[in-house]
């Protein structure tokens, strides 16, 4: 399956992307940063939610926790250490959450995960207001956009590599079985709780990392900014649109959608919503199986004729 | 009562039924025999409209062309199916499943009578009427499925392996009941592996192999057919 050619293409692509900041101006870089962050988020999300069909809306809980960790710790500690701590916090939080949540099925899980994100936000707000007395926090880190870009590129690559490894491993298969039928899964020897928990935590830690990396870009952070539920929704939508069952599916959802959002908000700032809504509906009808599958089918048809 | 002609059915590219023609007369009970994968279930599904069929087929039920009539309306016309896998509502109670059976307009007037009949047939259902069907044992669910079909006061009752998973004693009762249904004038189309029993209550039968009808005849003839005796009756 994996050929030398594919590996070299991947390495070249990575190299080119890494060089990009030398050729792009701030806006182009900003675009790439936004896109990369969603690539990482959607890929990390799909790692767990794709095969298991557990649609999680808790993305922003971890993303926000990552950002908030940076906001709290940004003075005095070096950034890589902060990132590490953020990931650890994300890991612990996701394990705690996972133990409780992963018993739920279907839409119950979906809304639970949403409620969870809101709960985290409310608790952090309450804590800040009543205990520390500072709600907004400032991040003054000497990080340039290109630094953030490289870090995100690293995070996105890491996510893809992990996703690829998971897919090839037994645990990836276990997740697919769980997604198909949990009863069978249990009866062929899969430890449901451990498997789900492990992947949920892995996915959540990566999401936390992305939030932490992106935080320095905003200078000012408060819960309503970093726990904006839109992040969860966009992640889900992009992944679903691309095709969450495939490694590169989310990527193929993020890039076009992200560019579409950007193009619309730039060209139709006053009718953005209407056009976006209409286009979105059209997309769902035209691409019933996601972008990647559409491309595949298109290629197949071309190959046939 | 039912004419099927030229019926073909594809699953993607796989041809499951190839130009099938069968006929059931008013009040007749017909059994379909065949090995697994022969297409028996597919035939019932095609007749009931659960699976779409090829365009040139003709499906006529009591002088009415069925091809473009959706499943739910076919049920309204008196064409009921107890499908493979039972097709029940596991989250609803026994009582509610039976009530749904009597959902078609023409069945409502007979609801009370049919319920009595069903409860006579399967007394267990009466005592479990509040239980959720999904929590019942396999055999109990099979009883609900047959009972529900009877509730719809069918003109033609199609049963896909109704005895599947029933205890021997219940199988005997079931066939006794089906012969009562038959006596009441309802036409039946039965797919069964319990060949002896089903031939005993049938007028005629068809034998299917890989999507074709390979043999047909009166029940008596089939019983004496050596091929059938060998493969379906297990005697030499």
């Amino acid at each position, binding site marked *: 399956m994996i050929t030398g050619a594919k590996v070299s293409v991947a390495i070249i692509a990575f190299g080119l992307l890494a060089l990009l900041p030398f050729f792009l101006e701030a806006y182009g870089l900003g675009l790439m940063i936004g896109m990369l962050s969603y690539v990482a988020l959607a890929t990390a999300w799909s790692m767990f939610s794709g095969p298991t069909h557990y649609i999680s809306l808790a993305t922003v809980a971890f993303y926000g926790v990552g950002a908030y960790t940076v906001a709290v710790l940004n003075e005095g500690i070096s950034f890589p250490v902060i990132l590490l701590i953020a990931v650890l916090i994300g890991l612990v939080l996701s394990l705690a959450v996972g133990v409780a949540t992963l018993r739920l099925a279907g839409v119950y899980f979906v809304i*639970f995960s949403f409620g969870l994100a809101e709960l985290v936000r409310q608790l952090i707000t309450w804590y800040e207001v009543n205990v520390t007395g500072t709600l907004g926090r400032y991040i003054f880190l000497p990080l340039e956009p290109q630094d953030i870009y490289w870090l995100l590129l690293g995070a996105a690559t890491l996510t893809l590599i992990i996703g690829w490894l998971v897919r090839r491993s037994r645990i990836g298969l276990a997740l697919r079985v769980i997604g198909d039928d949990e009863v069978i899964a249990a009866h062929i020897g899969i430890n449901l709780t451990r498997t789900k928990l492990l992947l949920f935590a892995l996915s959540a830690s990566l999401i936390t990392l992305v939030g932490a990396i992106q935080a320095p870009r905003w200078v000012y952070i408060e819960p309503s900014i970093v726990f904006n539920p839109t992040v969860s929704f966009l992640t889900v939508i992009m992944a679903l649109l691309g095709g969450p069952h495939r490694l590169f599916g989310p990527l193929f959802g993020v890039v076009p959608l992200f560019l579409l959002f950007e193009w619309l908000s730039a060209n139709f700032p006053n009718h953005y*919503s209407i056009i976006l809504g209409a286009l979105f*509906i059209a997309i769902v009808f035209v691409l019933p199986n996601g972008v990647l599958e559409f491309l595949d089918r298109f290629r197949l048809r071309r190959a046939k004729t | 009562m039912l004419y099927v002609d030229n019926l073909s059915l594809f699953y993607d590219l796989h041809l499951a039924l190839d130009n099938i023609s069968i006929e059931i007369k008013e009040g007749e009970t017909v059994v379909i025999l065949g090995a697994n994968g022969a297409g028996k279930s597919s035939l019932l599904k095609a007749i009931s409209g659960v699976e779409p069929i090829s365009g040139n087929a003709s499906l006529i039920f009591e002088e009415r062309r069925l091809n473009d009539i959706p499943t739910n*309306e076919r049920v309204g016309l008196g064409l009921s199916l107890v499908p493979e896998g039972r097709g029940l509502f*596991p989250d609803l109670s026994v009582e*509610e499943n039976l009530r749904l059976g009597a959902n078609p307009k023409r069945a409502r007037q007979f609801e009370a009578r049919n319920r009595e009949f069903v409860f006579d047939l399967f007394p267990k259902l009466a005592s479990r009427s509040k239980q959720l069907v999904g929590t019942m044992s396999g055999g109990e669910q099979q009883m609900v499925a047959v009972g529900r079909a009877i509730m719809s006061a069918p003109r033609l009752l199609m049963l896909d392996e109704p005895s599947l998973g029933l205890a021997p004693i219940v199988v005997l009762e079931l066939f006794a009941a089906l012969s009562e249904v038959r006596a009441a004038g309802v036409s039946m189309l039965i797919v069964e592996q319990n060949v002896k029993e089903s031939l005993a209550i049938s007028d005629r039968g068809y034998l299917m192999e890989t999507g074709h009808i390979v043999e047909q005849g009166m029940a008596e003839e089939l019983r004496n057919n050596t091929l059938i005796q060998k493969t379906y009756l297990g005697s030499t």
Partner: protein
Amino acid sequence: MTSLMIGLVLGGTYALAALGLTMQYGVARIMNLAYGEFVISAAFATFVLFSSINLNPLLAMFIVAPAAFSISYFVYAILMAPLVKRSKKKGNLENDSILITFGLLFLVQGILLVLFGADFASYNYLNIPVNVFGITIAANRLIAFGLAMILGLSLYCLVAYSQWGITLRAVATKPENARLVGINVDRVAQIAFAIGGMLAALAGVVISMFQTFTATSGVVFTMKALIVVIMGGVGNFMGALISGLILGLAEATVSTYVDPGLTLASTYLIFLVLLLWRPQGLFGKGVVK
């Protein structure tokens, strides 16, 4: 006592807002992310009727609700029916409906933004104090509470005991089997969706009498409604009613006796704890295996 009353009335609003969604999601199996936009649209419609021709919102209900019914009916026919058909093979109606109603959310919101701008809309109707057991409550909130109770209970009875209700539940749980008993699944789902839209509109009309709203405040209603629906058990009206009341009571009690800063946290906490205790919601029925 005061907080009990306040809580019940508040909870009534939550329940009212959730009834339509439990119909749409519970029966028609459309996870309607644009639900709140339906609520808000009805609120705007009432607002316009009230401020242009001075129509009493309680009367406006009789215009807005049927209109919402027919609009939802067509929305289903145009947007949802093809998806339902398509998903028969693949069974991913949930994903598809999330995606499509997400688009719908933007579309409706965009239209509202163009029509009404981003400003707060508000009018006053029956904002008069009524004394109930020595506690003053706004008349319009009492109406919301009453309407929630009446609608919730009657829908519950209807669904639990009538033939039509059993049909609804059959379609809700096993649409693929419902046609075998002569049910026109598409039609039932379409009507359920339309009724859901109508209930959303009723909630919108009533809520607009006491709450300020903007073109973008729909999401809040969607989320609150979803939480109430899930907590009560999908498709269960009694569940929606009771969990709405529980949330209202919790909010009022926490606000009075603990800390208003924790009201929303407590809402979510109760929701989460309840789900862990009963993974299918308060009244959800679950069949294992």
